[in-house]
């Protein structure tokens, strides 16, 4: 079966129409760096999007960048940093987790809706996609959204595209809101006696007016920083005078939870990138899980899971995101049962061998009525199921 490599949206449309006519299912990819994420798919052909790349326009003072979907994430981040701007949702650099040579493309990042540590204060990838054009699984070109920041005209299909894993439509142009990068940052480290205490400190930090941009919790022994204590990490970003002021206030307020220490800008940046990437658990087990829950549920969730299976773990999002590594084949049961018992959320198997991803649900199972609605929405874009069938 022939593969497709369109280099314009017209060729993309022709490729999809041909695939429809020939009943061909397509594996949608550019760098294929995230092929280990999602349920494994076996498709008749590959739709290689690497021809759809390049930044189309970037207007820093409008806070907007437009690029073709297969533009490398690294190219976007370089262009933005030259103008002291950033993707505020702090994209994970997934080469750490998947041992790839490349961090993938902007389209792949949006399709998987991956966000890093700043998610808790600045929002997710889905909050920054302003508009796109695409070819649906029906082989038709359509667009949604716009190139302006404030728009409520028609359904917000950008939200649907983010996290759809390429199962609805294939994006070409994407327009993304960007933000100024902080001038400096510092991390406040609080050594706590217990995970509960560390969780309280983390949530307390977010309840103050001192605007932490990220808050993580490192269980004892999970990281070089937390060899003897559980550590709560609180990142402050902004202009130097503000960061220093907020840091001193927070140190005082949170001093009651334990000893405090400060990490400066450069090591702080490296630390948070590694936390966004899942690096602290990347080599601690074959399976990597990412579990989203209410922040208050986080510590109990981990203790519950650990009572059933051996794992290494840490928290981002003030306890609302559990990164977990394990080799236990039954871990999915323990994780999902514990999550269900503690108020719900969703557990995603970020990395595992193909066999395991084929046999257990990679994404959180849904109740039947919601699953049926998801399916109908998917069918409204791709009625013949030609795009990444079964991946989501």
């Amino acid at each position, binding site marked *: 079966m022939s593969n497709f490599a369109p280099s314009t949206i017209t060729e993309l449309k022709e490729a999809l129409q041909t695939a429809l006519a020939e009943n061909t299912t397509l594996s949608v990819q550019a760098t294929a760096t995230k092929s280990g994420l999602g349920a494994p798919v076996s498709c008749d052909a590959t739709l290689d999007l690497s021809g759809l790349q390049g930044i189309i326009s970037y207007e820093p003072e*409008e806070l907007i960048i437009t690029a073709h979907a297969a533009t490398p994430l690294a190219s976007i981040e370089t262009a933005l940093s030259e103008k002291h701007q950033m993707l505020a949702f702090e994209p994970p650099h997934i080469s750490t987790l998947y041992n790839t040579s490349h961090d993938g493309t902007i389209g792949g990042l949006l399709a998987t809706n991956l966000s890093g540590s700043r998610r808790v204060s600045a929002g997710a990838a889905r909050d920054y996609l302003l508009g796109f054009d695409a070819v649906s699984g029906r082989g038709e070109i359509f667009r949604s959204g716009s190139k*302006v920041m404030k*728009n409520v005209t028609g359904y917000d*299909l950008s939200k*649907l595209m983010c996290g759809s894993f390429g199962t609805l439509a294939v994006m070409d142009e994407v327009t993304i809101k960007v933000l100024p990068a902080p001038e400096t940052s510092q991390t406040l480290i609080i050594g706590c006696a217990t995970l509960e205490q560390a969780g309280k400190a983390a*949530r307390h930090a977010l*309840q103050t*007016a001192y605007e932490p941009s990220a808050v993580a919790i490192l269980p004892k022994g999970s990281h070089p920083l937390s060899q003897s204590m559980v550590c709560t990490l609180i990142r402050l970003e902004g202009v130097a*005078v503000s960061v220093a002021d907020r840091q001193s206030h927070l140190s005082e307020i949170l001093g009651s939870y334990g000893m405090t220490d400060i990490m400066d800008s450069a090591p702080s940046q490296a630390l948070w990138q590694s936390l966004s990437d899942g690096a602290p658990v990347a080599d601690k087990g074959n399976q990597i899980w990412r579990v989203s829950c209410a922040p208050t549920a986080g510590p109990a969730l981990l203790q519950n899971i650990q009572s059933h299976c051996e794992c290494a773990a840490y928290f981002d999002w003030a306890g609302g995101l559990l990164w977990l590594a394990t080799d236990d084949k039954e871990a999915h049961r323990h994780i999902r049962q514990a999550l269900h018992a503690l108020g719900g959320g969703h557990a995603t198997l970020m990395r595992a061998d193909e066999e395991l991803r084929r046999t257990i649900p990679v994404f959180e199972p849904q109740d039947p009525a919601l699953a049926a*609605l998801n399916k109908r929405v998917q069918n409204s874009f791709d009625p013949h199921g030609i795009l990444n069938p079964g991946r989501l």
Partner: protein
Amino acid sequence: MQMPKADQMILDRRHMIVAGLKRIVPAHCVLDDDSSMKAYDTDGLSAYRQMPLVVVLPETTAQVAAVLKWCRDEGVKIVPRGAGTSLSGGAIPLADGVLLGLGKFNQIIDIDYENRCVVTQPGVTNLGITHAVQDEGFYYAPDPSSQIACSIGGNIAENSGGVHCLKYGLTTNNVLGIEIVTMDGDILRLGGKHLDAGALDLLGLMTGSEGLLGVVTEVTVRILRKPATQRAMLVGFDTAQEAGQAVSNVIAAGIIPAGMEMMDAPAINAAEDFVGAGYPRDAAALLIVELDGPEVEVNFLLERVGDIVKSSGATSVRLSHSEEERNQFWAGRKSAFPAVGRISPDYLCMDGTIPRKALPEMLTRMAMMSQKYGLRVANVFHAGDGNLHPLILFDANQPGELERAEEFGNDILRNCVQLGGVLTGEHGVGIEKRDLMPEMFSDEDLRQQQRVKCAFDPNHLLNPGKVFPVLHRCAELGRMHVHKGEVPHPDLPRF
């Protein structure tokens, strides 16, 4: 504005429908006499009025589900309604439709400071959420101008904005979860106290869907700690161009103010006549720049902003030194609509967004259109995010003026789209901008949106006549023309 023609068969069955609904919900929840229904015959777009078939005010989610399922089975249309403040006619009733009011869903369910969220019924007002948490120092960020009256459920439907969107986002960026009832009567939970979806982001899709996809029966929103300090700067300019450039320069310097509002000379003078906020009457454009956050940061950045606006050509700069002064700076902007109401018998409030750099061009075009239509216009502008609110002044008692004002408004919105912008930044499409949708979207764009609608409501029973100018039957939208075994593009390069 034409609404879909009322179905005579439904009108003829009115008694049976009312009786049927009274079997599903308690009789006191059904209003079917004209005097009670009168309160529901319009919304914030009050030039349009329509009595509904019947009004139902359910008290429980189970009742909402039962009403929707019954209406689906009976082929009866539904118009959901929160507080009825939509400026685009999103809650305008249908003669052959049940008006489903969520006003009795007025309780806050859970205030959870540790997880920084509030779980509430949808009929609670936007400001009601802030009032419930302000004693602990928290607030709910999106602040549409109707926040004292508009309901949080309506905010979800419209993806409401406000003056602080640049920094804090629209409703969609501040909602964590919802419970919805579908037209099938299914009760579904999307999101919750955790972040992000583990599947398709139906929460993001529902937000801003204008009541066409489902009825929201519970909402979980993010609350934030109130900033330690808020200070505002009032800046006058000789030209709108300089003011626009100043806004760009502030953002290019890496500063995201909590709000940046612009007013033009007619709006400045109307506001000054009305409240005497101390605005410079000789300025062609006025900026209000507000910063919030830790005190040292606000003071530090305001100094930078002051330097930037001065080098951008500011003719006057004033800084608020007290909460009273800050409120005074805002008083003129916040009363801009009633102030304009004072100098004109009627006005239309438009709501387009343009790329900020297109502002001078847009204002030039607007002045030309004002001449062409013979109607005055005053402009207030969420300058940070490019959201424009031209107020078109007219007198509805003069024959033909409403129509002329509407045509003027349509022309403004067409120009917004031509300049790379959109038809609506925060008010929604509703019926007001429905027929302009083809200005911004191709047939296929609109068909794909309607296919999504079909996934929720295949018979177009939920809020029909809103958003989409043409209602295609779902079967027709779903049809695909695929030639089996016939390759449409034999010349396509393949490998």
